[in-house]
């Protein structure tokens, strides 16, 4: 009898704490969403009337120098290219690190793992100078090259981990049956590693999508801004347009949130092995 009461009390306590904690965690996003649907651009405390006016304004972008759709397009373009290239190149490297024992393998892996812990701002100065010399400052190509500093180590490291989980017997069996090493890789390992490769690509996508500092230093023409940089420029121009600012924020957050929902299963792997950044 007493035991049931104690247990019930504990359950109530747990539920109350969980509801409080979930409420606090959801609050900033919920507030952003509310603010983005405000009819008025500026409001103390909470919006008074709701409409989708802010989204219409953001998508129509009346100010051509601060064009939200253009920024979104720029981000999609740069992020997609970086993700595709980095994942493809890293798949080869990750496979090689996972399957072969070769000279300097260990030291190269150290370089890649420690490499992704290096401060971005330190790499930024020399990279900026290279881009300046190559006349690639203020270009999306230049930004994409710079994104490789984190994309390649992240992807290589994650993919090596995923390849490690696939037993070598399968390829060996395929090779005994007359498949070449490359054929075994393409026909046996790649399909099995597909979920891991997809997860890696999504992590790389999110990291590039969320970048702010490299874009800030490298891009200077507002029309070429990526979405994060654009949002800040918009805020500096129209500080009191809270509804449009938050509508932009919601639109930038949606892809990242949706991808994390898919990636939840891989989160611990990604966080410990590949230092996916938050």
């Amino acid at each position: 009898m007493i035991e049931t009461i104690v247990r019930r009390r504990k359950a109530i306590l747990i539920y109350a704490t969980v509801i409080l904690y979930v409420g606090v965690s959801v609050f900033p996003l919920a507030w952003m969403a509310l603010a983005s649907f405000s009819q008025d651009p500026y409001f103390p405390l909470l919006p008074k009337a709701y409409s989708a006016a802010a989204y219409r304004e953001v998508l129509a972008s009346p100010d051509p120098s601060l064009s939200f759709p253009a920024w979104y397009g720029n981000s999609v373009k740069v992020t997609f290219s970086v993700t595709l290239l980095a994942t493809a190149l890293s798949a080869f490297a990750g496979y090689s690190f996972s399957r072969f024992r070769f000279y300097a393998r260990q030291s190269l892996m150290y370089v890649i793992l420690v490499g992704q812990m290096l401060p971005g701002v330190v790499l930024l100065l020399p990279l900026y100078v290279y881009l300046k010399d190559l006349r690639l400052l203020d270009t999306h190509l230049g930004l994409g090259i710079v994104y490789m500093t984190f994309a390649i180590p992240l992807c290589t490291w994650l993919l090596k981990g995923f390849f490690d989980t696939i037993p070598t017997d399968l390829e060996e069996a395929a090779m005994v049956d007359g498949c070449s090493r490359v054929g075994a890789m393409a026909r046996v390992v790649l399909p099995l590693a597909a979920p891991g490769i997809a997860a890696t690509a999504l992590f790389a996508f999110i990291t590039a999508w969320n970048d702010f500092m490299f874009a800030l230093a490298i891009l200077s023409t507002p029309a070429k801004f990526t979405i994060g940089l654009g949002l800040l420029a918009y805020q500096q121009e129209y500080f009191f347009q809270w509804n449009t600012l938050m509508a932009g924020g919601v639109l930038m957050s949606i892809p990242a949130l949706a991808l994390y929902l898919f990636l939840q299963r891989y989160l611990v792997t990604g966080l410990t092995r590949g230092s996916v950044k938050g």
Partner: protein
Amino acid sequence: MNPRWLPYILILPAVTIVAGTLLLPCLNVVIMSVTEWYLFAQRAGGEGHPFVGLANYGAAFKSALTWKALHITVVFVVACVLVEVVGGLGAALLLNEEFRGRGVARTLTLIPFAMPVVPWALAWVVMLYYDGIVNQVLLRLGLIHGTVAWLGQSTTALPAVIFARAFKLVPFVQVMFLAGLSAIPDELYEAATVDGASAWRRFRNITLPLLKPVSLVTTLILAVWHINDFAIVWVMTQGGPSNATELIVINAYKVAFEAFRFGESSAIGVVLLVFSLLFGVLYLKSTKAFE
């Protein structure tokens, strides 16, 4: 084709890019730090970047602003890690209990971590504004007597930024600790319960010691991230007001891109590099992720 070459051919593109975008810049930043290097103003004497020894280091570390930035960075990193580890441990213990809707709760609490940093920071800028929801709610609850310019005065700006930053990373620590907790076998708790150990003793003598490896790795990752934290501070305060939130990374960025003193900024960068490598090596030693 000789199959002996296959491993090298496979890693060649990735390794070339890593060499070009990571190793070469690291080398270059060291060289820049010991040469005269301004972005726009060329020397009166002509082209080139003459060797100047440790002059850039001298200039950087003679500046009171650099020391202030280092001090702020230490406060920022320690405070963030402390809040995140304590908060994340509490959250993980809570979400490790069995209750209906646990999966949903685990997913929803990840939202702050999953949000891109720029919208997250902008939302806090607006929420912390005079008329923002934070001031209005605190005012109505009678906890403050007038609206507070949280990001506008040097006493509250740093705590506000730390709050926004740590809030975002509590879910990260939670995920790490939940993974750690799930690796602790139930039998240990059952045996301890049979022996009459209280809940507190089970926590002290089983949970905490067994979470030690996870917490070490987590703390090191957090420390490296926070030493390099740039975006959230830049969006919220740009290092202001009166440099109250100017982390060393922000300081290095401003010296390079606002004062154009690349040499001096590189000197700060090299010091940062050494610290990051130190933490990186500690991380490698603390994790079995490597082989």
